[in-house]
């Protein structure tokens, strides 16, 4: 899923400083799971924004009226259409979805100013209650078959493809004692699986044109389009 977290309140207040009435929209997909932009977070942010403006903490005068909604998915037209009436009546839409949802909303309502309330962080998973960790950089050419299901592009700080750098010590990455060395994890897992020969092969340079570096990516399925 996509993991996001909320922007600092001061930044959100700045983004809506010219607005008297906003529509604050959450999303029931990923950002609900990572507790950043679901129904609960929408209600919470709505309250905080209104209070901050009412108390004059926002360096702008006047109260803020907040209308809230949480849609099934912000990255789909079908779920945005029902918002049309509400959107028409506000100065600004504040989206609490990931960057995809924000963009989709802005494109769907081209005459309305749409701003993000979240910082979209990464594609990751829930590791335990309250902890999410990055797992995939969406590189377009999955290498996980070489590394026993541990992504070196994402989880190694240098995206190395040929084994651990000289900074790997006692299981952690050179950048922090809190971050595991992905290549130590790969090594350990391949050893358990009896497949260490996989990291003895030299992996050739990667084709990054399938990643973001190649320009806007599209996925086309002729059979359904």
């Amino acid at each position, binding site marked *: 899923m996509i993991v996001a977290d909320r922007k600092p309140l001061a930044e959100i207040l700045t983004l809506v400083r010219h607005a008297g009435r906003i529509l604050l929209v959450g999303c029931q997909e990923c950002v609900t799971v990572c507790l950043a932009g679901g129904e609960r977070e929408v209600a919470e942010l709505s309250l905080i924004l209104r209070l901050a403006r009412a108390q004059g903490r926002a360096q702008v005068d006047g109260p803020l009226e907040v209308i809230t909604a949480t849609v099934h998915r912000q990255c789909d037209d079908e779920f945005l259409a029902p918002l049309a009436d509400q959107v028409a009546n506000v100065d600004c839409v504040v989206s609490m979805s990931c960057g995809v949802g924000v963009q989709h909303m802005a494109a769907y309502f081209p005459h309305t100013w749409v701003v993000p309330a979240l910082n979209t962080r990464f594609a990751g998973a829930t590791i335990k209650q309250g902890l999410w960790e990055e797992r995939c950089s969406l590189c377009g050419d999955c290498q996980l078959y070489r590394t026993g299901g541990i992504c070196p592009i994402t989880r190694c*700080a*240098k*995206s*190395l*493809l*040929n*084994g*651990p*750098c*000289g*900074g*790997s*010590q*006692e*299981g952690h990455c*050179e*950048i*922090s004692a809190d971050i595991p*060395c992905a290549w*130590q994890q790969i*090594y*350990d897992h391949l050893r358990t699986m009896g497949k260490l020969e996989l*990291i*003895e092969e*030299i*992996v*050739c*340079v*990667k084709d*990054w044109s399938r990643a973001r570096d190649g320009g806007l990516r599209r996925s086309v399925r002729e059979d359904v389009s």
Partner: protein
Amino acid sequence: MNRLQGVLAAGGFAVTAEIGPPKGADPTRLRRYAERLRECTDAQNLTDNQTAIVRLSSLAACVHVLAAGGEPVLQVTCRDRNRIAIQSDLLGAYSLGVQNVLCLSGDHQSFGNHPTAKNVYDIDSIQLLGMVRRMRDEGCFLCGEEMKAPPRFFIGAAANPFADPLEFRAKRLAKKIAAGADFIQTQAVFDLERFRTWMAMVRDIGLDEQTAILAGVIPPKSARALRFMAQVPGMAVPKELLRRMESASDQQEEGKRICSELMEELRSVPGVRGLHIMAVMWEDVVPELVERAGLLPRPWQAASFSGRETG
């Protein structure tokens, strides 16, 4: 005249040293170091924005070293440049007379003075080795396109016997050799026991005969400096050494003594073909260390020496 390659090809014991380029545009000190080191070492490594701190470029520093009569080793990391920029710099370096290159991953930018930078890592150090070798041996760019006048580098790589997992470290060296490493400069050795263990693994699979391994040393200038090094990821400093430095009345002298002892021990480890002295911020001490080790004069200073041309 490639001194480093010549010494190694003739079966000699090589000595190289590291010079950190300045954090500014004045090359005076850099040139002075190069002049001091050129007589007592076979080649001088110019670091590439080491620990991700911005410094005068390795390539420009190499040119200063050449002008001072030295023999530079261009250090190239994968952190800041993609395959296009690296190949371009390699052509430029070779055209200016640089004949040795050391291929590295590079320290992560979070260590340096621009921790908010974006890193590149288009290729990794092993892929970089393969790229330099391909340019040299196949006369073509990474994409396969042929080039006129390919650069004929003597290609080096780093190895860190103190990083984990230890069991993989010799295998990783094997990959570097297979990719193109003619010579290896190791991380600074303080923990001789661990170094010997690693070398035994290296010899077991015959790697010492496929490349020239130069063992790294750092003369600690003070107990504080040594304590700092003990914290650096990928370094291993035994506690006894720290205690020894701390209790010394003349720490500089003790640092030299420790380094000389390590150099002596490392020379006797089978498979070690040379030493790489990284006297960070203390380049002036290198001539004395080489002298104390009885490694002067350097083989290429003899009239009869015929270092192989690589150009």
